[in-house]
């Protein structure tokens, strides 16, 4: 019996049709296209809900922060409104993306996807780009609600485009890497919940960083949240944001770190 299997005549049948293994940039692009279609197919039923939740969270928090101030001056209103896109982005990047990754882990989706003859990097890049694009409508809608509520005037500058893209990419990659790198879903859940609470209360997104005590100010020089608000503010107003270059750098480093951790986890053979 075994002679039949080891016999030379049977070897060719085991190779995939199309014979040779493919690689190279055109093949990678081809894989990316397939993975985009695959990811989009899985996400499509949730997209509407995700945009709605994101907008509600962003817009809701914008309205809510306003209630906490006895008087809303123009500066306060400007800070809250320009914080709106960041507030809408954080639930997506730091809650929905990690949750999606946790669900995929539980369902074994990663094992399935990684078994396909597609570079694993193509899958990661397709997920990153889809979530980054998905983040934009919620950010815009939250900002529109803020403008309507506080009646402020913004002066948009071209910086806004790289700012939005980098912020979205950074939060998606960091959220993805976090959920992928931490093995226990329960731990991820705890981190995510603690993060949201800390970010929404103790991060200078809707108020100037100068109001923080010294040590917290220093912590926020390293964490990405203040930088997100700063670059967004730089794109929406003139003169309100300082140290914009440094903030872009901080975000870039975080995004790169997110990508690196993802690459490490994805590339590792278990």
């Amino acid at each position, binding site marked *: 019996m075994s002679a039949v299997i080891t016999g030379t005549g049977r070897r060719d049948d085991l190779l995939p049709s199309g014979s040779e293994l493919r690689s190279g940039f055109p093949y990678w692009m081809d894989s990316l296209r397939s993975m985009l279609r695959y990811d989009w197919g899985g996400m499509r039923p949730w997209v509407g809900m995700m945009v709605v939740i994101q907008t509600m969270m962003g817009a*809701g928090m914008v309205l*809510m922060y306003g*209630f906490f*101030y006895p008087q809303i001056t123009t500066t306060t209103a400007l800070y809250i409104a320009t914080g709106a896109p960041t507030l809408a982005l954080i639930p997506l990047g730091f809650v929905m993306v990690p949750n999606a990754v946790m669900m995929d882990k539980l369902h074994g989706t990663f094992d399935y996807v990684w078994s396909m003859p597609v570079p694993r990097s193509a899958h990661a890049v397709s997920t990153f780009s889809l979530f980054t694009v998905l983040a934009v409508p919620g950010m815009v809608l939250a900002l529109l609600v803020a403008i309507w509520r506080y009646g402020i005037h913004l002066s948009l500058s071209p910086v806004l485009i790289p700012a939005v893209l980098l912020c979205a990419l950074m939060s998606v990659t960091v959220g993805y890497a976090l959920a992928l790198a931490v093995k226990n879903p329960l731990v991820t859940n705890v981190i995510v919940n603690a993060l949201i*609470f800390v970010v929404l*209360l103790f991060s200078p997104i809707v108020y100037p960083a100068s109001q923080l005590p010294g040590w917290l100010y220093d912590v926020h020089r390293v964490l990405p949240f203040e930088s997100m608000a700063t670059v967004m503010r730089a794109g929406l107003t003139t003169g309100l944001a300082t140290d914009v270059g440094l903030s872009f750098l901080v975000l870039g480093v975080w995004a790169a770190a997110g990508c690196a951790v993802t690459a490490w986890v994805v590339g590792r053979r278990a």
Partner: protein
Amino acid sequence: MASSDAALILPPGGVERGIGRSGRDFVSMVRWHLASLRMWLVTIVIVQALSGVGFVLGISLFFHRIPQSAALFVTTGVPVINLLIVGLVLGPQLVANQRTAGSYEYLQTLPVSRSVTAAAWYTVCLLCGLPAVVVSLVVGQLRYDLPLHISLMIVPAVLLTSFAGTMLGYALAHAITRPMVTLLITQMLIFIVFGFAPILFPLQRMPAWLADVNWWFPFRHMAVVMRAALTSGPNPGVSTAYAVIGVWTVVAAALAGWMLGRRP
């Protein structure tokens, strides 16, 4: 032959009724709830205390110099949220978990009156909320040096606020059979309690229509009774507030009782 079979099926000792039985059931149900929460219990208490303290301290970052009125509002509002979270938010989620795990039906079969089970759950919710209330108040007082003036009315205020929240959560948990819907509603409730009910800030800051909407819901009134018990000075509308919370409690308890008493 037939009569001896019936004797075998009957529980030994016969059916016991009365206050002694209820008391023993109550103790065992409290123990049951505490045991089923086990290690969660400590986590819940710590998370509650941390979030309360976090809110009390974090609010000062929103201002250059925080006005004392804002600090007072937050410090006297946070206890309401501490009391609500376990009964109103965590309770329904626990029941939703029981439904998916199948222990919901098991609990229903226990030979314990439904009202005793509810009373035991209320006691547990109260126990989980109280430490956070104390810690938040102490930290608020130390940080902002507030003119707190705690009167005896704190007892009914705390008891009723916690009871109303627990009963609302109980009604939600037992009326809604789909766990996903429960999760969604409780998440919304957290959001509403923090930002769209005048608990942590004065009513006047809201648009008038939202303030009117809030009159019909219990959260605004819980903040009123709590604030009246924690500060001196005129507190208009305290009796109305007690009345509104009372009505909500009765309605929620009745709804929960009806849902539990129904035979499917």
